[in-house]
């Protein structure tokens, strides 16, 4: 249902040429003595995408590929080094604090760790009420109380749980509390940074179901971050694949799994263990992620890519339209990558 609703919507979030560079240089004296230049880490490299109202865009990628960094920039926890983020047509970084408060009411975030995302010294009700109070959504304490109870109910907890402390809950319940907090200022857009990777599968299923229910009920828009392809497939309308800070492929969810274009996407898919026991023999995945401080030249994936050639080593690939979406790959552009349908 949510997937249908997404079709017609206009972009809620537009991200263009977003980059984030961290200065990871040694102190100047060390550089002076060791004659080293400054070192920079491009955690996010020229990323552009948009998210339409009501849809779920997922970002997948291995650890260190820049997923969380993008998430943080989107919600204003981190300033982009380059690029723009437009939220509903408005730039994300405004210096007017009133405008900022207005904006802040409209987006929220759900974090990875259900343990670290709740302040252990705060009662659950206070945790949930904080955004309302700080953002000035609600001032009357009775109304706040009522809203907290309502939210607890919405995430299948009981109002009585409000007076407990986070440590009295299991991981799944805590993640529900975190969701309730995220919802308390009635946002339209929620960034979810690996919201279930710390949970057990049975609980993960509950949370994923809950999130989709809420999306349907409240018309939420999600940016869903995960390294787990099967979870992503379950949640997303569209999927962006990140490698070393750069988007290598964006494509419609089903299409991506049916016909992955970029060799890295293929590699990721290959690495997923086969639960169906179809007897498919996984292809051995080559190598490890390179050091992001000194990324490989050209296409950063070329050292691990079975289809790499001279051009890949030299030249940074540009976006190419594919049958299913877009990809940044010389091979795809030159159509020299065999069209293997996934064996499923």
């Amino acid at each position, binding site marked *: 249902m949510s997937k249908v609703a997404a079709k017609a919507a206009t972009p809620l979030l537009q991200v263009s040429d977003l980059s984030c560079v961290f200065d990871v240089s040694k102190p100047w004296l060390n550089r002076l003595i060791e004659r080293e230049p400054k070192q920079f880490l491009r955690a996010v490299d020229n990323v552009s995408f948009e998210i339409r109202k009501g849809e779920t865009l997922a970002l997948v990628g291995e650890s260190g590929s820049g997923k969380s960094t993008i998430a*943080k920039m989107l*919600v*204003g*926890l981190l300033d982009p080094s380059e690029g723009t983020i437009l939220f509903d047509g408005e730039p994300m970084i405004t210096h007017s*604090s009133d405008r*900022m*408060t207005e904006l*802040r009411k409209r987006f*929220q*975030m759900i*974090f*990875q*760790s259900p343990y*670290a*995302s*709740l*302040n*252990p*010294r705060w009662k659950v009700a206070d*945790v949930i009420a*904080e*955004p309302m109070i*700080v*953002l000035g959504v609600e001032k009357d304490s009775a109304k706040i109380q009522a809203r907290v109870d309502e939210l607890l109910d919405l995430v299948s907890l009981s109002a009585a749980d409000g007076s407990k402390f986070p440590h009295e809950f299991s991981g799944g319940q805590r993640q529900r509390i*975190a969701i309730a*907090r995220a919802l308390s*200022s009635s946002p339209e857009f929620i960034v979810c940074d690996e919201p279930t990777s710390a949970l057990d599968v049975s609980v993960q299923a509950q949370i994923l179901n809950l999130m989709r229910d809420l999306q349907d009920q409240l018309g939420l828009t999600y940016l869903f971050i995960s390294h787990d392809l099967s979870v992503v497939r379950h949640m997303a309308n569209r999927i962006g694949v990140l490698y070393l800070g750069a988007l290598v492929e964006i494509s419609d969810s089903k299409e991506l799994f049916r016909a992955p274009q970029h060799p890295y996407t293929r590699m990721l898919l290959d690495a997923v263990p086969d639960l169906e026991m179809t007897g498919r023999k996984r292809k051995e995945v080559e190598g490890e992620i390179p050091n992001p401080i000194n990324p490989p030249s050209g296409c950063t994936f070329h050292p691990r890519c079975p289809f790499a050639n001279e051009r890949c080593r030299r030249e940074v690939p540009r976006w190419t339209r594919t049958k299913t979406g877009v990809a940044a790959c010389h091979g795809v552009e030159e159509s020299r990558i065999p069209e293997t349908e996934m064996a499923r």
Partner: protein
Amino acid sequence: MEAVSNFLASDLFYRFRKSPVAVLAFIVTALLVLSALFAPWIAPQNPFDPGSLNLMNGFSEPGKPNQFTGETFMLGTDDQGRDVFSTILYGLRISLFVGFSAVMFAMVLGSVLGLIAGYTGGRTDTIIMRIADIQLTFPAILVALLIFGIAKGITPPSYRDEVAIWVLILAIGLSDWVQFARVVRGATLVERNKEYVQAAKLIGRKPMAIMLKHILPNTLGPVLVIATISLALAIIAEATLSFLGVGAPPTQPSLGTLIRIGQGFLFSGEYWILLYPAGTLLALALSVNLLGDWLRDALNPKLK
């Protein structure tokens, strides 16, 4: 009410009840603190009112009538005719007051600086922690001597008595803030990267609010442990400074001053002037230390 019953049901309290050492230490500490608090009502004499003392009572043996005045003192009297029992109670007051205040001062100063350093990072952090390093480079006792010297120089002599205690607090506190700053900074570095802090930033909470409302409460565990142990240290430091002659004024002796006075009578047979105050100090410092120790273990989740 709820807090109390929660506490009584908590693991901490359970573990406390199960540790005879902790219970004993707590009882001793509580007894000492209470008797210090209620010293004016418990003590038979006000040893800080020199006008009410009778010098001839000096050196009365515990429990025996004085050879000149015939008065009897439970724990004897010192060289000024002060009832040792009363003086211990009043001295305890001073020692505890100095200890508490110094630790409070160090704790507030250290926590605030540690919080700012840890949360802000960057240059502020570097500067604060450098100052802390310098402070550590300079042995506490010298710092205290130094502050004492300076304070003495800038306060007019007639006010020295009144300020002596405060100078003592300042001196001990200033030599002690670093460990609070370090611990709080360390904890802050850990906490500030936790996601609940990000959640608070996300909704536009100001750094001040985040530091005070979110991070600070989560650093209190280790701070409490250090505070307890520092308390014992501060009481001892006060005694040591008194030994070096820069402590509490002799007319209002703290436990340390009493010991300094009493140690002069170690060979002469008036053991009580040294023994009882030293015993009290030992009991106090030991039980506070034991409590701190126990608390450290109890609050350390990894040690269970």
